[in-house]
């Protein structure tokens, strides 16, 4: 860790001012991702603004029948919330499939969306990595890439978004509410929140410097059964190799997104439209243009088989 200063924010505005006004400053919520990255010196903030004291930890019904989830709601609280369990089961299932009870108790909704990737080279500061040191090269291409992305990648970076919750939020058309340094708020559709790497893999999110996530909003729940299936190498406490979040209607239509296969939760409208034709058609469309490595090409057939499993579950 490099030395840093620390303050507890007393209001969202003050927090944003502190981060926007201090070069190298960052928010910290649960710290479960940021502190690990700091210990490896991958992140080296000069100043930390702790947002945990802010009043952003409630879950409220919205007038349209949706839900507004404060950015500081813990992963545990969100997964256990009665309305989430009843109407947005895919979210509860995705969250409890991730990390461990201890981590979920600490992790916040905002921090979860902003968790960084799990490419092994990103973590080894002695190997080139465009995400860590822009322009240094990508060690994963031609290296250990079994866990990495197969679609949506670029020549510059093939890291996957490893999160679970975000995949579920993606099928629900969630949006991220933020406030910026000027005090303006905006709502960013989740589909636009995660950036593809292109030539700038170090830019991962559609946030301005100092922009604070205040909430995640969910529209009214879609009809259908909710599914989250996470495939991994051990029974728990492991990131997904492939995950599938889906809301399936009785008539065979529905929504589907794939996790750990792309730099962001991967939801493709045309692919989703092919759901009635079955998993092969969906995956062919969703992974059109995929560029897997020899180590992770299996993720595409695995995605198809996992979707088949989810559809079979949906039929009960």
């Amino acid at each position, binding site marked *: 860790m490099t030395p840093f200063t620390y303050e507890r924010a007393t209001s969202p505005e003050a927090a944003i001012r502190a981060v926007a006004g201090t070069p190298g400053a960052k928010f910290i919520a649960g710290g479960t991702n940021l502190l690990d990255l700091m210990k490896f010196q991958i992140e080296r903030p000069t100043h930390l603004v702790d947002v945990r004291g802010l009043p952003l930890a409630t879950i409220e019904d919205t007038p349209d029948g949706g839900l507004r989830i404060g950015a500081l709601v813990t992963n545990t609280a969100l997964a256990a919330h009665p309305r989430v369990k009843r109407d947005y089961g895919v979210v509860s299932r995705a969250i409890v499939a991730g990390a461990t009870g201890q981590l979920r108790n600490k992790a916040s909704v905002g921090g979860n969306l902003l968790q960084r990737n799990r490419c*092994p*080279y990103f*973590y080894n500061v002695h190997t080139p990595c465009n995400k860590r040191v822009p322009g240094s090269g990508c*060690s994963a291409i031609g290296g250990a890439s079994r866990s990495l992305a197969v679609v949506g990648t670029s020549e510059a970076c093939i890291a996957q978004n490893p999160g679970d919750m975000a995949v579920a939020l993606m099928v629900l058309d969630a949006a991220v509410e933020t406030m910026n340094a000027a005090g303006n708020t905006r709502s960013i559709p989740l589909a636009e929140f995660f950036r593809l790497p292109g030539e700038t893999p170090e830019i991962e999110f559609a946030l301005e410097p100092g922009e604070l996530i205040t909430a995640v909003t969910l529209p009214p729940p879609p009809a259908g059964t909710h599914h989250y299936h996470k495939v991994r*190498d051990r029974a728990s406490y*492991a990131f997904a*190799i492939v995950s599938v979040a889906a809301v399936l209607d009785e008539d065979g239509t529905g929504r589907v997104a794939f996790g750990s296969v792309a730099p962001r939760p991967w939801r493709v409208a045309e692919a989703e439209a092919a759901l009635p034709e079955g998993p092969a058609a969906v995956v062919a469309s969703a992974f059109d243009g995929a560029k897997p490595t020899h180590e992770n090409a*299996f993720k595409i057939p*695995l995605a198809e*088989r996992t979707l088949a499993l989810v559809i079979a579950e949906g039929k009960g």
Partner: protein
Amino acid sequence: MKFATPAGENPIDRLSVVGRPVPRIDGPRKVTGTARYAYERHDAVSNPAYGWIVGASIGRGRVVSIDTAAAQAAPGVLAVLSTLDFAPLAPGFRTTVHLFGGAQVQHYGQAIALVVADTFEEASAAAHLLTVEYEVAPGRYDLAAEAATAEPVADRDAPDYPVVDRIGDFEAAFAAAPVTVDQHYTTPDQTHAMMEPHATTAAWRDGKVTIWTSAQIVAWHRPDLAKWLGVTEGDVRLEAPFIGGGFGAKLIAQCDAPLAALGARAVGRPVKVTLQRPLVINNTTRRAGTHQHIRLGATRDGRLTAIGHVSLNGNLPGAFAEAAIAPTRLFYAAPNRYLTMKLAALDLAEGNDMRAPGEAPGLMALEIAMDELAEKLGMDPVALRIVNDTQVDPREPDRPFSERHFVECLRTGAERFGWDRRNPTPGAQSDGKWLIGMGMAGGFRLNLLLPSAARVRLEVDGGLTVETDMTDIGTGSYTILAQTAAEMMGVPLAAVTVRLGDSAYPVSAGSGGQFGANNATSGLYAACVKLREAVAARLGIDAADAEFRDGRVLSGDRSVALAEAVREGPLVAEDGITYGDLDEQFVQATFAAQFAEVAVDGFTGEMRVRRMLAVIDSGRVINPTTARSQVIGGMTMGVGAALMETLAVDVRHGTFITNDLGFYEVPVHGDIPHQEVVFLDYPDNKSSPMKAKGIGEIGLCGVAAAIANAVYNATGVRVRDYPITLDKHLAGLPRVA
């Protein structure tokens, strides 16, 4: 005491304390946090400084310069030790690596600097301020690419075997065999993944140093440390009372110990150092991966006529080969045999001992091959192993096994597990979406005899104090030593105090190679025999016919309280066990039959172990509770070996890139089902007066293959490349939807 002839009846045979399921006596200290580990010795040293080790970030070459100025000027920094300012520490016992000093980089992660600061954070922050210039040399990091350069090599731990070990005419017998298996298998590099990383606290006083470290074998560390520090062995006090696991990683000193001591000397203050997990993985030792070629030839009724086993692996120049052929030498009968090991040079962290070295990876291959042979023969895999049992060393038919009850392990296991319910047709059993399979494998591991000594003192209050440099690496040594002393002296367990892991105590076998329990308790047995003689002498009783029971000494019609003997002061006895040639006259080994039931998700290929059973033949069981813990720990490690553990090498950088416990997955609770363990409990009177044998490694042996065979039975897809991850059989699974 020299143990040169088979043990007759002795006080241990009473089994009033020994053989009982006594909970571990160090348990309360562990769960209350009062058992202090090497990095926590704040009770022993005040105000320690913190050392942070910097590892080389190249795989091979030289350090040209290290600019330490910025680090030296950083807050809290007390000293920066650069490898360029030290002569290379000569390689220690059982290793070819110099842990520090000099410009040469033998492998990625080799220690090149130690930053010492007031706090841990200051040391780690300053460590990142070093500027290191390297001269990179081309390295050899890819075993497959180096295979052609490999040379046949002797077995470090069994040098008497010919390098190319031939019996009969393997080629002719294999060619003539009506049923054959000819396959290649690979096992990956593995890390020990013990919970406690290597750690040391060191403090100097008047030219002498005390080193609190995480060492499995104290006496294997101390001479090297003295040499590296330029002091006499007597000037080094080493203490290792508690160790958070080792699995072979801590048999020999790693860089934390010399660097803590060198750092402490440099700053004139105690220093503590631990290795961060990426350094444990790239700086210390690994279990070396293997490429194994196995050929089996058999008659139609399943008798093996030919066994060929060639194992290739890679290691640093001059380092040893993983003896994957070791179990094949002795496990099954077959008149024609061809066994050899080949070693290629690889510039990776040194391959060295890890739990059941040789046997564990060897059986991962051999026991799949046996399953494949059974299938080709249309024979039950249990029956195949029974048919090929041998009661003698296949090389030297005049050399029998001391005790070998492998067939009983197999029969008992098959019965307990419900093996008759296995469907021999692979891919034919399902339960909803799950494909179900059963598999089994044999396990074999040598029993090793090493000298071991102890001191035992009868205190004036009637208590007994045991002292030996034996270690308890989480295994139960404290408990079984207390049981042994209590049994020998006829006192309750609670009267015994055990002190371990201190170089001031008599030298024991230490913990490793599953030789700890049998040898250390036998050394204590010897000391207790001496103490009994001293007690008898004081009481004027003939030791030969004295019985020690219930705190009394009985002889003829005399019955005297033990305490009488120490009325005028405590009695101390020290002795050790040494061995004759009973391990040459007889093969001494331990055996297992491992069974597993596995479910494979028919959609995703994910594997879950549903049931496991091990039937173990390892001599007398000194404590069924701690012995069972050893076996279920081994079985758990076997699940990891079968399904997930692998150190992925980046062959461009020469580094293990899966270098922490997030990337290197080991089983979690959810992966481990109910594990049943059965001990046959046949005392072996040729192994020691305890009649016990090793237990710490046999539990692992054969497990991975049993799981591999169960996965095959479930799916019909044979994977010969460990670990069996879902991507390796996905394409062969039945199509879905």
